[in-house]
């Protein structure tokens, strides 16, 4: 009988990512309802030292797969190890982050474990002993409650949505030998090109400053970048701006770009096409700055300023400087 709530915690360069604490906290909550333990699995190279940290967020047991092969995330190696661990321990629930890495890993695990998964969930609960996940569909134009029937019941959790809750547990570290079959490793990372901006990635950002057609051209983004740097924010763009070639495609927020849910989304010169709103309407707070008072973005905004963004944004930057 499958038992226990498992998570795969995500670390990079020897430090846990915040989303790992979010899923640990969420797992703790489910485990408490089920009267079960939370186990975490963490993979990496030379990361044994950090494993116990997860105990702080309610993890009872941490399985550590420490191997040079895990230094960087690769689908093949990680899937092999996690599949083996899950099959050996047979947990009832398996949670991962819906981050770039987590999405890749969790989806493949659905295949290797022949189960089902609710991806990119925004809420989880237990009903009749079963995991019920709430997840947006159609880029947030509808929500669905999903019941996962397979074993384990898998869910990936949207970053920035689940609260980080501290609840001290043992965090007992258990070494896990993945016994990797090297012949099965068919992919390798040949290069890592770090982004020059050093800014936080859109899907992970707590604050996003985003610009649309109203920016008038690539130069306009300089004032957004200045504000973003001050707030530790990511810079996003609407499809119009990306299609015009003002910003790279990786910056696009919207249904055909990235779906984001930061605490604060500042939309500058974005009229608010449905396809853009779909990508950011789950943000906690939305600020709209637009000259056109009838722009649809104002209907979604918590705070709106009807004015020329080229006047407002520099003033905002100045104001923020005062308080930070």
């Amino acid at each position: 009988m499958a038992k226990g709530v498992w998570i795969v915690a995500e670390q990079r360069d020897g430090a846990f990512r915040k989303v790992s604490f979010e899923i640990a906290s969420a797992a703790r909550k489910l485990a408490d309802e089920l009267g079960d333990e939370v186990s975490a699995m963490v993979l990496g190279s030379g990361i044994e030292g950090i494993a116990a940290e997860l105990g702080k967020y309610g993890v009872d047991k941490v399985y550590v797969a420490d191997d040079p092969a895990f230094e960087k995330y690769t689908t093949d190696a990680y899937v092999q190890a996690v599949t083996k661990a899950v099959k050996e321990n047979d947990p009832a629930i398996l949670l991962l982050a819906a981050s770039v890495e987590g999405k890749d890993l969790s989806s493949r695990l659905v295949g290797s474990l022949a189960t089902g998964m609710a991806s990119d969930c925004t809420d989880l609960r237990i009903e009749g002993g079963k995991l019920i996940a709430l997840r947006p569909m159609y880029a947030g134009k509808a929500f669905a409650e999903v019941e996962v029937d397979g074993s384990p019941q898998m869910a990936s959790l949207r970053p920035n949505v689940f609260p980080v809750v501290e609840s001290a547990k043992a965090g007992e570290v258990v070494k896990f030998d993945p016994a990797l079959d090297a012949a099965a490793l068919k992919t390798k990372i040949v290069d890592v090109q770090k982004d020059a901006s050093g800014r936080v990635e859109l899907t992970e950002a707590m604050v996003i400053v985003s610009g649309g057609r109203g920016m008038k051209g690539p130069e306009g983004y300089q004032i957004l970048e200045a504000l973003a740097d001050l707030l530790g924010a990511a810079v996003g763009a609407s499809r119009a701006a990306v299609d015009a070639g003002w910003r790279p495609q990786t910056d696009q927020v919207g249904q055909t770009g990235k779906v984001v849910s930061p605490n604060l989304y500042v939309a500058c010169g974005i009229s608010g096409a449905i396809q853009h709103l779909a990508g950011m309407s789950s943000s906690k707070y939305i600020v709209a700055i637009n000259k056109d008072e009838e722009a649809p973005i104002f209907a979604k905004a918590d705070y709106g300023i009807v004015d020329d963004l080229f006047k407002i944004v520099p003033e905002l930057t100045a104001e923020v400087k005062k308080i930070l």
Partner: protein
Amino acid sequence: MAHGGEHVLKVGNEGREVFWNAPYEGILFFFTAIALVIFAYGIYRRWQMWKAIGLPENRTDNAGERFKALIMNGLFQVKTFREAYPGIFHGLIFFGFLVLIFGAAIDATQFHIGLPFFHGGFYLWFSLIMEIFGLAVLIGIVMAIMRRYIFKPDFLGYKGVPDNRPDDAIVLVGIGAIIVTGFIIEALRLHVNINVDGFTWGDWSFVGYALSKTLAGVSYDTTRILHKITWWVHSFITLGLIAYLPFSRLLHIFTTPANYYMKNLEPTGTLKPIADFENAESFGAGQLEDFTWKQIFDSEACTRCGRCQDGCPAYISGKPLSPKKVIQDIKTYWLERAPSVLAAGKKTKEGEEAAIPEPDKAMVGEVIDLHELWACTNCMYCMEHCPALIEHVPKIVQMRQYKVLMEADFSPELQLTYRNMENNSNPWGIGAHMRGDWAKDLGIKTLAEDPDVEYLFYVGCSGSFDDRGKKVSVAFAKILKEAGVSFGILGEEEGCCGDSAMRGGNEYLYQTLAQMNIETMNGYGVKKVVCTCPHGYNALKKDYRHFGGNFEVFHHTEILADLIAKGKIKLTKPVEGLFTYHDSCFLGRYNDIYNQPRQVLGAVPGMRMVEMKSNRAKSFCCGAGGARMWMEEDIGERINDMRTDQAIDVKADTIAVGCPFCLTMMSDGIKDREKEENMKAFDIAEIVWQSMAVEKETDAGTPPE
């Protein structure tokens, strides 16, 4: 000489001996025969070339109307006279030569057969008329030479580089020389006459007579020799020009009138729909052979006069497109290609398929540059003003069709626009379900709710989705309600009119959209349609009939003018300011609606009107037609900014328009020129609604009806 000798030339029986002092008629006939043979060969050769390439097209139906066009533009030079300077000099040369040729015919008849009346009063008047028209031709030629070689207007060249060919000089100098030598001959003859005959009627040949006075002291024999020489020079130049004509720009004497006769009888700007998508192997014009013979013949009627280029918004704003250049480039390539096609045809034996060589140049991309092709706004200036009735725009659209339909090779912005039109039936790609949202709170019924209305208000994409355009729709709908006009909209059932697809070369998408609209409208038994967008107006009125959409279509300015004239709406509240009206191409040049918008504005109290430099048929495009609305404008200056400058120049504080595309472009122009503080752009419906002073009353609590 036997002829002409019957009359004793004296006062009361004035005349002259035709062919006096030129007793070698046999030789002249010989040279004339040679000239005519060369002329005939030239025409025959050209005829063969005209027949060599091009798809069939019937341009000889409805002879009455065609003959009328020929007389109006050929004989009366109506189109040519639209521009004063070239109109005048061309008129001088044309009418001058017409009369001179008639005179020459009289001369010849007198010489060969003898004209009983070729003396006395008739002769004197004949002399005077010949003199006047000869002088007219000479003045015309001088004016033409001055224009081409001294004034050097840009429209005779391309981008500041003159396009003066040897042919131009040969023709101008040749014609001038015929006249000058004619006068000299006359002067020499008069000089002899004065000396010999006691001649008294010199003033009837005042030019020659005046000239003859410079010959005082020249002896009879010398004069005879000089006369003989000049006479032969005159004859050889004339015969030379006759022989040269088929190979020169003078060919337009035949080709341009032929083009008048073969003019397009369809309404302005309508494009021939592609009939069969399923079975055709090629769409649009990818090579010369994809044009009809008439489309190629157009380039033969072109005299490089440059009027098309002179008003082309693309050219003026610094883009590579010149309608003249397009036509000339087609001609140049045709001149290369036609002989090789002809030669291939000759080698072929009866019953065999001719081994026509593969075209060595792609029509689009090599003969016509892609930047030229996509710069056209379909504004119709070129076709409106071409004195040879050349049809530039359909050729451009057909070449676009080739790029879009066959090669799917066109700008990414336009691809996105077309996808949006495919998926959501509007160029912005806004959800199709939101089309009727602008009317939500206005109590306007859709035809689904009530099909029993007089007018369908076809709102169009701008009026339905564009924030600025929506305000125009609201204003116009409120006016209609206030005037008690029975109307309805299609709401979500309405689709994009497809104009931008058609003019951007995506005929397939256009027809799909048109057919859906027609089906919907016919389903409701729609008879009358009113549009606030001239693009929809033009498409519904002229192009939808090809697919079974026969509606009586009105532009909202027509309806507004009518409502005002009938007193159905009262404009009472003054709207202060200096207004200028920007003629939309699809309203003005396409549909001849110039007056109604001005009438409507004229009825607004308080308003002062001023015309921009380019207005009415010469209006300068806003830059958005021909699918340009959806494309980047990255070469040269922005057309809308240049148009805005014209409004700024006349110190207008409001640009009134009757087209949502123009409204966007003019608003953007005002922003670009940083005139937002003191300039605005409004649709005429908005101005009318403002002047109706109704909203304030309802706002103040008067319940709406």
